[in-house]
Each structure stands twice: as structure tokens, then as C-alpha cells.
């Protein structure tokens, strides 16, 4: 009997080990949280800038606010598509000096796309090589870059708002 019990326990343990285990969702959860936070903060910044200041640029070599908003939206499609293994939708080309509403909508749509693409992401294939633009990068590094560029662009957007006398605190978390 004890022998049978031991055999049963051993068989149960072996079965448990051989079952597919759910990959920890640390990095995937992190980028989903970041997506939601940046959608809120960058979206608030884009909405907070008056329409007539969308052509503002701190210097001749720097992007206008409209270009910055469009750049973030383009980056979202560029990165979230390979990271989430989801084809990006065909979006029509939008001029960076276009109307504020169109640019804000483009930004919002791009974050919505990221949220959909990253919804089922898990940590199982973080070392898989992706092609982003013309660069090959592991998925984890693409996530690090995407998150880093959001942080950089949010800092820039808040700087633009501040220089135009807008309330930066209203766009802060």
C-alpha cells in the first residue's frame, strides 16, 4: 500500500511538472501598465495644448508640438505591431500641421491599437528577435525602447506646455 501511495504521488508530481506552466507576466504586465499610463498622460498633454500652439517649437532644430504628437502616434504603430505580433492598420498620412482634433484622434487611435496588440502578450517569447523598421531587436529591448521613448516624449510635451503657459500639473499622474 505505501508503495502504491508513493507511486501515485510520484506520478502526480511528474504530471504536474509536465503540465504547461503559465509564463510569468512581469514584463508583459509592465508594458500594459505603461501603455495605459502613457495613453492617459500623453493624451492629456495633447488635449491640453491650445490648437493655435500646435505649430510651436522651442527652437528651429526641434519638432513642433504637432510633429511631436504625430511622432508618438507613428512610433506606437511601429513598435506595438511587432511587439504584439499584430498587423498595424493602414492609416492615412496626416500632416503634422493638420487640425488639433485629427492629431489628438490619431494619438488616441494609436494607443488603442497598442492596448489591443499587447492585450494577450506574455513573457514566454521576450527574447524572440523582432524586426522594427530596419533594426533587429529582442522583444524585451523593443519594450524598453518603446517605454523609454514615451517617457522622453512626455517630458518634452510637458516642457512645451510649460513654455506656453499651460498647466502641466493637469497632465501629471
Amino acid at each position: 500500500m505505501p508503495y502504491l501511495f508513493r507511486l501515485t504521488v510520484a506520478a502526480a508530481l511528474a504530471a504536474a511538472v509536465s503540465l504547461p506552466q503559465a509564463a510569468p507576466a512581469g514584463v508583459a504586465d509592465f508594458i500594459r501598465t505603461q501603455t495605459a499610463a502613457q495613453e492617459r498622460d500623453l493624451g492629456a498633454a495633447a488635449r491640453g495644448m491650445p490648437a493655435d500652439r500646435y505649430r510651436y517649437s522651442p527652437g528651429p532644430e526641434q519638432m513642433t508640438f504637432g510633429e511631436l504628437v504625430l511622432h508618438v502616434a507613428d512610433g506606437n504603430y511601429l513598435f506595438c505591431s511587432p511587439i504584439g505580433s499584430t498587423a498595424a492598420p493602414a492609416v492615412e498620412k496626416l500632416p503634422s500641421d493638420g487640425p488639433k482634433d485629427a492629431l489628438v484622434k490619431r494619438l488616441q487611435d494609436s494607443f488603442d491599437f497598442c492596448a489591443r496588440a499587447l492585450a494577450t502578450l506574455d513573457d514566454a517569447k521576450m527574447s524572440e528577435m523582432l524586426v522594427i523598421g530596419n533594426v533587429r531587436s529582442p522583444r524585451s529591448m523593443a519594450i524598453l525602447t518603446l517605454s523609454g521613448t514615451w517617457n522622453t516624449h512626455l517630458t518634452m510635451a510637458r516642457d512645451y506646455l510649460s513654455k506656453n503657459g499651460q498647466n502641466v500639473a493637469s497632465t501629471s499622474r
Partner: protein
Amino acid sequence: MARTSPRRRADGGARQLPRFVSSWLALLGLLLACAGAARAHDLPVNTMVNAFVRVHGGEADLVARVPMDLLRGVPFPTVDGRYDLAQSGPFEELARTLLADAFVLAENNARLAPVRSEGRIVPASDRSFDRFDHALGAARAGPRPEASVPYDTGYLDVHFVYPVKSTGSRFEIQSQVTVDVGVLAPLTVRYVRGDEEGRAMIIPAGADPVDLDPAWYRAAGGFVRLGIEHILSGTDHLLFLLCLVVPVRRLRAIVPLITAFTVAHSVTLIASALGFAPRGPWFPPLVEAAIAASIVYTALENIVTASMGRRELITCLFGLVHGFGFSNALGDSLQFAGQHLLVSLLAFNVGIEIGQLGVLCVMLPLFALLRRRMSPRRLVVVLSSMGGLLGAVWLVERWQVLWKVDLACSGPSCLGHAAPWLVASVAVLALVVMLSAYRKHRTSKISRRAQ
């Protein structure tokens, strides 16, 4: 035998001129395109990742120091513009998880997976990465909440432990840390064998895996390929070679020239790689300027005088200069030689000779073909004037670089004070030699006429 009438000669001349001009322009365009390629050697500002790898007792340790500004994507908490180190633990763990995918350590081509990791944020002033044992000790020491690290400065020190099958295996490393930044975020890695630390290897992010301790034949093969690639992409060396051989019509006369060039550049290449060359910051730009001057001199000599009397001597002198140029190119790669410095050095030289012979195999039949379409003297003048023009452009550019080198120094690099004057002296000397050769040539011509 019908004589060519003045009209026909004039027509012939008129027909020849556009062909002459078009071929000149085509070649000039090609050379200017090459000049553009040769200029593309700007040095980026590096954001270096430093690492040590040690394989010891069934495990491999990778200790790396990653600049915090490469980890902006991780939202480390901050207080008053400084990292809140007491609250950073989960974010350091996230950063280590991300970095575990970015450092690719392989044993016999099979990627290893880390079984544990640890690390901490340190200020930029931390000096514990001078040696492996110090770096390992620091990464294992745990967090330092009392340290003050301003945002976007300092480093994240990480330690990954990988189980290995055998210490005798072949180990390779590759960096994919912020691979989209490429050469801006290279990995400097030192392989620790027993108690001995190997030479530092600098690997651009995204580059192919690098053998941490290569076998001699692997190192040699890589360096032969590197030598071939270097000579084929070295527009200035190729232009010098062109100016050197274009006036020579007999293969028997080319062999001593090429031999002189090969022997001379081998001497300085090997001497330089073994550490006998000056180390001041002025030396590489001085060599680059002297290489440009060698092209200008050889081209002018081709145009001014048809005499090849002292060409072997001049070739030998310029070969010494080009050898220093080769060694500058090799300097960045010799780090990958492992324990096989001399073998790799000789292999690089063999690669250069193979590339040189390949270029001559194309160049010499092409010259023979062109000599059928225009007079040999005109071919020499046309190609040399184009080569000389391009060499002069490089000389001006490189002179400007040399002039900007910071000469405020102490010790041996103070020789840099003399560098621009040295180049000027060489240029004046070359001019004097050339003028004297021209005078000698004219004198002998006049005396022949008189006779």
C-alpha cells in the same frame, strides 16, 4: 601612306575631347563617391556597457555595468530629481529581467539561460569595475539606499549566473542592449580565465556573437578576412596603389614596387601592433594626413617626371606610413585575437596582401585596356591628376583634423607639438625632392638634345 589632313586631325581631336572629358568626369565622380565613403569615419559619443565574464566551477558569471540613461524605459521612482533607492527594488528586478534577454551568452552555440541574478544602482563615481573580483563583490553587496544618484546618471550593476556543461567549451557573447542605438551602446567585455583577465573587447550592440577565447585558426581566419575587407574599403590605400603602378607598364617592374610597399607596411604594422608606435592623440591624424600626402606626391611625380629612378625608395618610405594606417584600423579589432596576438597580426597582413593582389589583378588589365584607347602618357597624367586632386582634398581635410588635435599635454604625447611641423617638413622635403628630380630630368633632356 595617306597623311592625316589638318582638318581630319582637328575633327579627330574634337571627337576625342568629349570622350576624354566624359571618361575624366566619370572617373572623377567615382573617386569623389569614394572620397565620401572614406570620410564616413566619424566617432560617435559612446554609452558604453562594461562587463566581465568568468567561467568557473560549472557556472558562468556575467557581471555588467549598464548606464542608467539606457534604462529610461524602466520607471524607477525618484525623489527630488534623484533615484529613490529604497523603493527601487522591484524596478531593478524588472530591469534585470529585461537585460537577461539582452546579454546573449552561448556555450557551443547553445544559448545559456541565467538561473539567478542580483544587482544594484550605483553612482557614477563608483570605481568598483576596475577588476572582476571588485565588480562581482559590488554587484553582490546588495542595495545602498543611502547612496545619492541623480536621475539619468549612474549605473545599474547586474550579475547573472548561468550553469555550464564544461569550462572547456567554446563560449560566445553578444550584446543586444538597446540594439536600436547600435554602436552608440557598445559592450566592453573582459573574459576572465582563472585569475587572469583577458584584453577588453568592444562589441557593438547587435553585432555577431564574439568568441570569448578563440582557437588560433578561428582568430587567424577572422583576421585574414578583416585584412581583405580593410584594403578593399580603404580608398586612400587603393588610390596610392593606383598612382604607384599606373606609370609602370611591365610586370617585372611592378613586382619590386609592390614588394617594397608590402615589406615596409608590414614592418610598421607589426611594430605598431606590438606597441612601438607613438601613442599620442596626434599620431593617427598625422598618419592619415601623411597617407594623403603620399598620394599627392606620387601623383605629382607621375605628372612631372616620367622617371621611375627612385620610386622603390619612395614607395618604401610611404609604405612605412601606410603600415601605421593599417595598424590604426587593426587597433580596434586586435582585441578579438584572444591569446593569439602574433598569429592574428600575421593573418591580418596576409589578408591585406590577398586584397592588394586582387585589386592589382583588376587594375593592371584595365590599364592595359585603357592604353589601347589613349596614349600611355595621357593615361598616367589623367589618372594621376585625378588621384592627386582627391589626395589634395583629403590632405586639406586631414590637416584640419590634425590642427584641431588638443596638443596641451604632458609626457610622450607632447611630441604632438611637433606634429604639424613634421608634416610640413615632410611636405617641403617632398617638394624639394620632386623639383630636384624635375630639374635633373630637364637637364638630361637638354643635354641629350645638345648631343
